[in-house]
């Protein structure tokens, strides 16, 4: 993501208190900010308070913003900080203790056991997912299933998957935003994606 050049006009407008530019940024970023905030705090109302605090913090701090990061990276850095502080007040585990996962992301029963001719290989190979034209009924169904499964993921996985695959942050940005190692980021992302993949496969297999 680049755009620091294009954004200098936006920053300048914010500094002069331009309503229209503020509204544009609010519309562009608040929905995804709410989604991420919701991973930290108890309720939708709480998430709205967090997002409001972020915007207030941002407009107050706009004079100091040097444009070294994009507006988006800056917003989400402030968001994570405020959401974590709020989570601590709500006595939620803001650090999302990143467990060391030893579990597998695919049911071990799907692979041939030790002692088999081909141990560790698929018993029944996965079938390709069907083509789903953009906007088709099936495409919409799969998107809805993915969204539902993302909501069910453990919080930190949900946050990582949302940042990476919905909002398009790269792995370095996510590690920095969440203060997690690259290896942890990868494990969390992989587990989240694998859980969604399994739901899609179950759905497609049952049709």
């Amino acid at each position: 993501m680049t755009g620091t050049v294009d954004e200098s006009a936006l920053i300048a407008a914010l500094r002069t208190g331009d309503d229209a530019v503020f509204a544009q940024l609010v519309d562009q970023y608040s929905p995804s900010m709410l989604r991420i905030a919701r991973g930290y705090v108890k309720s939708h109302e709480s998430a709205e308070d967090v997002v409001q605090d972020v915007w207030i913090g941002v407009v107050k701090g706009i004079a100091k913003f040097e444009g070294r990061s994009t507006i988006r990276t800056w917003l989400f850095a402030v968001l994570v900080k405020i959401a974590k502080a709020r989570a601590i007040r709500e006595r939620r585990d803001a650090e999302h203790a990143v467990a060391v996962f030893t579990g597998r992301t695919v049911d071990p029963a799907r692979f041939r056991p030790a002692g088999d001719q081909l141990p560790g290989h698929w018993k029944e190979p996965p079938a390709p997912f069907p083509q789903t034209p953009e906007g088709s009924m099936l495409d919409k169904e799969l998107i809805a299933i993915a969204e539902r499964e993302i909501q069910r993921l453990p919080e930190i996985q949900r946050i990582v998957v949302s940042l990476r695959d919905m909002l398009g942050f790269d792995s370095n940005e996510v590690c920095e935003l969440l203060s997690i190692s690259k290896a942890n980021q990868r494990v969390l992302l992989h587990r989240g994606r694998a859980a969604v993949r399994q739901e899609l496969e179950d759905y497609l297999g049952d049709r």
Partner: protein
Amino acid sequence: MSRAAMDCNELVELVTAYLDGSLSSETRARFDEHLLGCDGCENYLEQFRVTIATIGKVKDEQLDPVFRARLLEAFRDWR
């Protein structure tokens, strides 16, 4: 020294690292080698790609108008 062939149950745990380009060159070579001979894993990788693309199509909800108005008001007050 010949390196061990990769099994399907190992490959499935490495897909995100593979797609991110963070596998060591040796592991990547074993991954690619396995894929060449395994339709099941090729399908699995493709399913994973479709999954990621599907997640990318999830849309955020529209902002609640009352909340939006609250944010814009806060900005006006500050200005």
